[in-house]
């Protein structure tokens, strides 16, 4: 391969690769500017010298993914009429019917623990319950359980408004949770979606709007 290929392989700028070659530090053939490198030799060199290059950390989440839509697909969309916030959370968790009883109990406890610390009602009729720390044991990918409340409930939200949409967020890791939150934040800035939520849509309609938002971003 040539200098450009070598630079990409080693995760370093081309000028650095040229300098290393000139200093006799790097296995190569020929002389500048016709330097040639061999992949296996470079890989061995990188391993032996511990050069990991300055390539930026690989993004843990591919921004192309529509995380929100995927989360909803792996989760659930439904409605119910619970009598208080705690029951609402229980309903939202139970919507994830593929999870064993033990899992749903553990998740409900974790979410309630968080809810007791501070209300997740963020205003405009939406609540965002989630566990305080990721429940890695049961959750391997981000999942959203959307529960529409037929009668809005008091959720001690910041703006004092009752909540009619519960978005239960479950993530396998902190970075994934942050990313999911960011997507939710973006979605909730879309006034059309907020309007749509008030009408307790079905999964298809909800996903359609979510996908549109993602495409426009």
């Amino acid at each position, binding site marked *: 391969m040539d200098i450009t290929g070598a630079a990409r392989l080693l995760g370093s700028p081309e000028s650095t690769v040229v300098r290393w070659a000139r200093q006799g530090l790097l296995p190569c053939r020929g002389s500048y500017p016709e330097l040639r490198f061999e992949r296996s030799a470079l890989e061995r060199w990188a391993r032996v010298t511990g050069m*990991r290059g300055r390539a930026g*950390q690989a993004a843990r989440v591919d921004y192309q993914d529509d995380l929100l839509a995927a989360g909803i697909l792996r989760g659930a969309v439904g409605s119910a009429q619970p009598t208080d916030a705690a029951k609402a959370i229980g309903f939202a968790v139970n919507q994830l019917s593929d999870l064993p009883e033990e899992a749903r109990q553990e998740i409900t406890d974790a979410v309630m623990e*968080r809810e007791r*610390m*501070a*209300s*997740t*009602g*963020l*205003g*405009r009729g939406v609540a*965002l319950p*989630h566990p*305080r*720390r990721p429940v890695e044991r049961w959750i391997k990918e981000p999942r959203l359980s959307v529960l529409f409340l037929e009668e809005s409930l008091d959720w001690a939200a*910041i703006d004092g408004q009752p909540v009619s949409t519960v978005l239960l967020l479950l993530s396998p890791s*902190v*970075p994934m*949770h*942050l990313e999911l*939150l*960011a997507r*939710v*934040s973006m979605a*909730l*800035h879309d006034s059309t979606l907020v309007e749509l939520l008030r009408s307790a849509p079905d999964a298809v309609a909800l996903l359609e709007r979510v996908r549109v938002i993602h495409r426009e971003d």
Partner: protein
Amino acid sequence: MPGARETLGAPLQRVIDLFEAREERWGTLLVLAIVVGLLAGCLALGLHAGTEQLVHWLAPLAAGPGGIVLPACGALLGSWVVVSLMKEPAGHGVPEVVRAVCREGGRMRPRSIVSRWLGSLLHVGAGGSAGLEGPIVHSGAAVGATIADRAHLDERQRAILVACGVAAGIAGIFHAPLTGLAFSMEIVLAEVSALSLLPVVLAAAVAAALAQALHGDSTIFAAPLELSVSSTDLLLCLGLGLACGLGAVMLTRGVGWMDRLGGRLNLGRLGAPALFGVGVGLIGFFVPKALGDGYSLIHEVIAGDLSAGPWLLAGLFVAKLLASSISLGSGAPGGVFAPSLVLGALTGALFHRVIEPWIPGDQLASVGSFALAGMGGMVAGTLQAPLTGILLVMEVTGGYGASLALMATTVTSLLVARRFERWSIYMRVLAEAGDLLRPGTDQRILADVRVSECLDDAVLPINEGMTLADLVRVARRTSRNHFPVLDEDGALVGMLELSSVRELLLDPELARVTLVGTVMQEGGARVSADATLAEALAQFDAASAWVLPVVEGDRFLGLVSKSTLFGIYRNELRLQTQEG
């Protein structure tokens, strides 16, 4: 230059001024090198004379049954002087000098001038199977260090004077200035520059000249070196080198083994020399030639006066190997140089004896030549100092024509020895303790500086119950991006980097319902406050981080950033090499 002016007077001062170069105080260094050379040379001669005298006085005792406990008494007394009286660590002498140069800027205590000198006189004089070279090197180095302190020299110059003392010691013993230079460069100083070379050569030359003047003989192991450039000789020398390398490994491992045995038996620093000394006495009872520093045995072998068949020679070798391993491994003061020479001479003689039937008489060099070459080879293998080995033999015999043959032996021996032992007998203990760090090198700076010197404690901590909205308020008061998350006891529970929650901070609704505890990084890397720079940087690499928290146990102390570490490293580099 207060020191020189006080001690040497005005006219000499004017001469010095002629040579003074900027702040390097070259002239002073040269004059002091001469002083060190004279003193170290005297010490070398004194120790040899004193030991010979003691051996002479103790001869009647040694001949009788009391001879079995005599080495033990000597070892015990010698160790007592060094360890209890002078309160110095036990050891051969040379490793202590290297450690002083590597880790303490060459500082040595004035009492070191006499501690091992006296100790080894008692130990070796009573029959201990060790050498006087290590102790002389130690004394000479201490002389250099003490004079350097009196003259208010800086670290680099002190290291040079220490090297002068070392070189002068060796030069005085063997009447061989170049050998002294090679030894001090190869082992103690490990740097060669114009500034360091000349004073050391001067000191060595002065000491050698003094030894010659007072001692008479021009060479200490006088014998013609008959090895030439013929292919027979070269091939034989390669074989001899192989034998020496193996012998060197045996000696190194033997000493190490005895050392560990002494530790395991938990005899203490005086108990081991005493008990092991009895072992030496027993060996000496059957093989008297294995006792003492062995120079008389070397003379015998070289002169061809030792009429012994191969089995007897092998037996002598084993006896000396055992006796030296025990004496040296016990911790009693004494060096490994002389035992290496003895074993080398015996190896050479044994080799000669074995080869004799196969090579026609007129093509085979004398037993003395092989013995001498063996000595060089053994020194090269045991001390891993090939130049010292080659020069020693060349200088004491005047046999510069044999250089190629000698090189074949010493280099082969070194390669064989290194195949089995990464470190020489001197350096092993230092390397294992992590003390083998040459001054002004990268590794030393990274090992010297601790994280506690680099930490930033002007940090605003947050706790996990805070919301991100609260965090915004805190973040407004600081320009930092990293926040330690602490619990009520001040223990670190996690770290929060602003950039990871940037988007959330921009959404007031979400910021209000997201807790720090949910989005912080738990279980990340933590650096201990007394970690070295090297350890800390390794952690940064492993975590791919730029800022890490510093803790003592669980207690949070502050943050340390990679960029701060590099700034401090740069400063230290400038300070320690004084070239920036």
